């Protein structure tokens, strides 16, 4: 019963959040909706018995990525940025217009088609079976990470280091910036 409630709440949060991310015109609100969606996904993970991944989802997305996004929005002029840059060129609406949404919709439909095709073939061979118990995954994940997946683990650590240093260097203000 718990998980059912959790599933529905999370699913609704996820879907509504995702749709609103696409639909809203205010990028700041979009960030908050993204947060909602992420929280929902985290809940979904819990219903799938993935406690560790859910917690990591919380830490990384809620604590990290969303705040990063919000910061980026602020540092790039915010949602109410002027519509005209220093070269005097007037830009199109930043958050999309009818034309772009049409293209987006078409591509979305294409993707939907692909997915339907894939999933239908999947469900041809899939038979639901007895679901396993919810078991703690932390230890198993830890063991798997340093045995079977140790190479990927190490590479991802190098990747993170690279991303850290790269981001810091790229974003560092320079003295002789272009005026």
């Amino acid at each position, binding site marked *: 019963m718990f998980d059912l409630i959790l599933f529905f709440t999370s699913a609704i949060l996820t879907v509504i959040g995702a749709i609103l991310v696409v639909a809203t015109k205010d990028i700041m609100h979009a960030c908050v909706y993204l947060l909602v969606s992420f929280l929902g996904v985290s809940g979904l993970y819990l219903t799938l018995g993935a406690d560790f991944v859910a917690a990591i989802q919380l830490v990384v997305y809620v604590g990290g990525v969303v705040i990063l996004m919000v910061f980026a929005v602020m540092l790039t002029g915010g949602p109410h940025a002027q519509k005209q840059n220093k070269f005097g060129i007037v830009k199109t609406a930043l958050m999309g217009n009818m034309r772009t949404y049409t293209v987006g919709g078409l591509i979305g439909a294409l993707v939907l088609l*692909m997915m339907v*095709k894939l999933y239908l*073939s999947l469900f041809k*061979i899939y038979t639901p079976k007895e679901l396993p118990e919810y078991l703690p995954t932390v230890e198993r994940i830890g063991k798997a990470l340093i045995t079977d997946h140790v190479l990927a683990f190490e590479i991802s650590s190098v990747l993170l280091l690279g991303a850290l240093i790269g981001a810091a260097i790229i974003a560092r203000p320079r003295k002789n910036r272009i005026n």
Partner: protein
Amino acid sequence: MDYTVASIAPIVLLPFLAFVIGSFTAKKFPKFTGIMVCVAIFGSFLLSARIFSDFVFNKFSADYYIHKTFLWFDLGPAFKLNLGIYIDQMSAMLLVMVSGVGFLIHLFATYYMGEDKRYASYMIYMSLFTAGMLGVALSDNLLGFFMFWEVMGFCSYSLIGFYFEREAPGDASLKAFMTTRIGDVFFLFGLLIVWNVTTQVNGQGSFAFVDLYNVIAAGGFDGQMLLGIPLATFAGLCFFMGTIGKSAQFPLQVWLPDAMQGPTPTSALIHAATMVAAGVYLSLRVYPLLEIGHLLTFVTYIGAITAFGAATMALVQTDIKAVLAYSTISQLGFMVLGVGVGNYNAAFMHLITHAVFKACLFLSSGSVIHSLHDHHTHGHVQEMPRMGGLAKKMPYTCFAMVVCSLAISGVPFFSGFVSKDRILGDALIHGLENPMVYGLPMFLGFLAALLTAFYMFRMIFLTFYGEPRDKELYDHCHTETFSFNRNLPLLILTVFTLGFWYSGSLTGQGLVKFPGVENKEWFQTLIEKPDDKHLAKFETYTSQTWGKVDIKPEVTFPKSHYDPTHGLSEADAHHAHTIHVSGAIGSIFIAFLGIFLAYLMYIRKSLNPGWWVSTFSGWYQTLKNKYYFDHFYIDILIKKVLFKFQDFVAWVDMGIWDRIFIDGWAKVNDTFSYWTRKFDDIVIDTIAVDGTGASVRFFNLVLRTFQSGKIQFYFVVIFVVLASYLLTLKVV
């Protein structure tokens, strides 16, 4: 008696603890430190006195001894090094003497050094020294003995050099340490011999006196040779070299007069009463070894030469402390002479009595020196020619000094007579028996006794009587008033210069008895020569473990234990007694003769010292220059031989070996490498290949035009391609 470690060890630990605590409090609380040191040593005295009284007042049998050992460290089962406590009658007596005299000297030092700015550090050095000396007295083995012995040497070094602002104490302390060091290394070698012999006999090396005696009794030294010398002789010689160094005997006596550079209480404690006597104590401890090594004749000669030579040098000294220093050497010579002629207990008795009166003499001289303050040089005056007539100014000091001089001169009823007379008596016996061998030592001994009486009273007369020769100095000297820490030690020591404390009769030898008091020669009863009978008591020896209560029963004192015949037959004993009596009469005569001569020369002035000096100026110069020993050692041996040799060695080391043989390789190498480099330059470098670079260029700007830079366009392409692939793909 229940002597546990807890009641014995504090004898050493108390002064040592005072040293440790004092070294932290010395800077902040100098007065407190001084008092603490005195209290600690008084505590040691009380503990020693308890043991001593148990030995004297019928508690223990004459064979009784306390022995406790503990393991210091081991190197596996085959090598165990024990330290421990060994108290027999002799050490009990030494303990009480050291702590008692030491306490009085410390008390005096609070007066003498009280004004000094390094008073507290002086006191803690003295305290460490006392701990060392008490440790020597308590040690059950030669290694412990040696360690405390060296600690004393270190303290002596520090205290002689106590006035380190001046140059002379530096030289004196260096000299003292180095001279005794020569004796000490021989001592160390003696230790090695003992260890080795005990290992051979017992299978387990040991330094303990008990084991040494057992080994000697078991004949462990018999037939062993080392470098062509019998091993026992060699070992005994090594230990006796320790004595020679520490007790300033004949070839190594040069350091003791210089040691007077230290403060006067130091001279009293270390260089008169205790440390120098420790050398004699060592000889007494290893006496059986000297005996089986046939070294006693040698010892006798050394003692006699020292006694006489030092006495002659004392004749010409003008410094009050120098007189006392030479007198100390001379008296130590007497002790060694006593050892040599086999009068074991008289030697030890002289050690004790000498400690008391010589300490008193030194303290008195300190009292004199401290009162005489030269306003021109801002220093204290030690020169006797500037004194005179001081008896009026300082009556107590004068009294103490005169009494002690009487004691040292061998006047009847005083302790010096009792002990010295016995030594001279035995020397006389030996001399008469075997004049070819012992004649000279006997003669020198009596002559030294004569000179002793003379120079002591020369000192007394020059200092206290006659007209004041330096009027200004005399006037500035305050009249002495009785003070607790200045005069009390002197008077207490004076009391103990009386002979009956030591002999039971007024003169010793039972010549003049107290009416109604039986002839209780406790000293002779307690101190036994370690002959076979004595050594036999160790045969049933079992090791006493550390911390256990001693389980030996109390035994009443056997009344007639003392055997005045020394185990001789009746006729021989009578003969010996007769000679002793005549010797005693002779020495009384000699003492008075010496005093009378001094009186004639310095009070009556009927003999003019100046005439003697000018007549025998060659002799006078020799004596003034200490028989040229210092000249020989320092100017010839050290400066001419050792310094030249070491400079030569160092020159060979750096100038020849290093510069030519070691650095020479560098030259060889240089030459060789020069030619290889030439070869390299001409052959290889000029024919080397240079031009293999600069041939490859990179591809350029091919795919540029494909790129529009619009991301979403790329996305569209991606998705469309992907979809076209996926949607046409036949998925199972």
